[in-house]
């Protein structure tokens, strides 16, 4: 039962899939993609999005990182990532979607814009953090005592957001305003499966500076993930 993962080392979307695979102890072959020169295999397996990550299980591709994580959870039952209770599963899916739609999208907009447009995007991002911080109150992780679906989806905040803040010279997560979120960020990167599977911090600013420049240079700021 062969498992392959097409990824790119700086991508938080790829990382969240790797975390899910490692939590479950699934052996897989990792194939690094050059996002500026995508392989014919990637384009064959993900013809619509043309993006990483792509999980290949027994030759069948699964695309979209959150869809992949649910697939992993559906297929391999050990160390569940989503709760079993339907209401708690709904809450997990709700918050994961919130992180993607409200926070990530604002940060992405801030990353690929300048001036007033960027300022507005940063304000929206900071505003979007408030419900997240509230949701974490009294909890070590979004998943409770152990990391779960929302933690994996929000995980980029704990390692990648700092790089974005550095590249843009902005501050989004202020410890004074978001104490629960900051505590979560520290706890999250200390979880062994996460700590051992993070891209090298010192190599990230260079990559992301280049990504931002190429995004700003293209007419409508099309981004790659």
């Amino acid at each position, binding site marked *: 039962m062969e498992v392959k993962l097409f990824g790119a080392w700086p991508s938080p979307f790829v990382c969240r899939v790797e975390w899910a695979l490692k939590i479950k102890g699934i052996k897989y072959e990792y194939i690094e993609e050059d996002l500026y020169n995508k392989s014919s295999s990637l384009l064959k397996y993900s013809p*619509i999005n043309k993006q990483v990550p792509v999980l290949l*299980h027994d030759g*069948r591709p*699964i*695309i*979209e990182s*959150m*869809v*992949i994580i*649910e*697939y992993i959870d*559906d*297929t391999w039952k050990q160390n569940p990532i989503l709760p079993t209770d*339907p*209401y708690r*599963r*709904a*809450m997990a*899916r*709700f918050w994961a*979607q*919130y992180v993607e739609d409200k926070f990530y999208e604002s940060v992405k907009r801030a990353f690929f814009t300048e001036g007033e447009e960027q300022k507005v995007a940063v304000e929206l991002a900071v505003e979007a953090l408030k*419900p997240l911080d509230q949701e974490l109150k009294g909890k070590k992780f979004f998943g409770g005592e152990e990391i779960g679906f929302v933690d994996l989806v929000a995980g980029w905040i704990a390692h990648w957001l700092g790089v974005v803040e550095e590249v843009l010279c902005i501050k989004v997560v202020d410890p004074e305003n978001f104490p629960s979120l900051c505590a979560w960020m520290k706890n999250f990167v200390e979880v062994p499966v996460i700590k051992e599977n993070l891209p090298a911090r010192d190599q990230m600013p260079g990559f992301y500076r280049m990504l931002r420049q190429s995004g700003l240079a293209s007419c409508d700021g099309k981004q790659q993930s």
Partner: protein
Amino acid sequence: MAEEVKVFGRWTSPFCCRVEIALRLKGVPYEYIEEDLSNKSPLLLEYNPVHKKVPVLVHGGKPIAESLVVLEYIEETWRRNPILPEDPHRRAMARFWTKFIDEKCMPIMWKSLWSEGEMQLKLMEETKENLSILERELNSKKFFGGNSIGLVDIAASFLSCWTEVLQEVAGISLFGEAKHPILFKWANEFMSSDAVKVCLPPKDELLSHFRAMKEGMSATKAGQN
């Protein structure tokens, strides 16, 4: 005794329609509460404090928001007439197509209907391409779910009366029998199925609603010039 089910919705919203279709398909009795979005009820704001939007499903007093999250909850709570396949890979494909509809098809089509000039032409082209992609996925199947309505069909409900009405209001042609015959046939099958037809808003009232919205937008624009 079965716990009470309520749906907070808006008759003009295809997102609310999705929830009602799913409940009807599964034969789940529910109370429908119509919301005035210009004057949201205290209950709605209590049940969905994060987004303050409809639809919200309340089951035994517990609220779930975001239509796709609600659909998955309905599927997991009431098992008869499943809307997702058993097989994890087919489930993943259904979730992928649902995301494609929700994150690409719908927003781009919506924007194309309300924009003008060069931007509108560009968005119209993108919409037609997205609809062609959906057509290729549908292929020779009766529904996206196969022989019966599934999650993807329900997610695509906006392609029924909404698209017809909005094209008329915007005065543009995006989706029709000539351009997308397979999808057009699907829309008719979908709209005439028992669970769906009772949930669709009356076409003439929907037309009046969106005409009034367009007039309101034009008046605002004229006032700003």
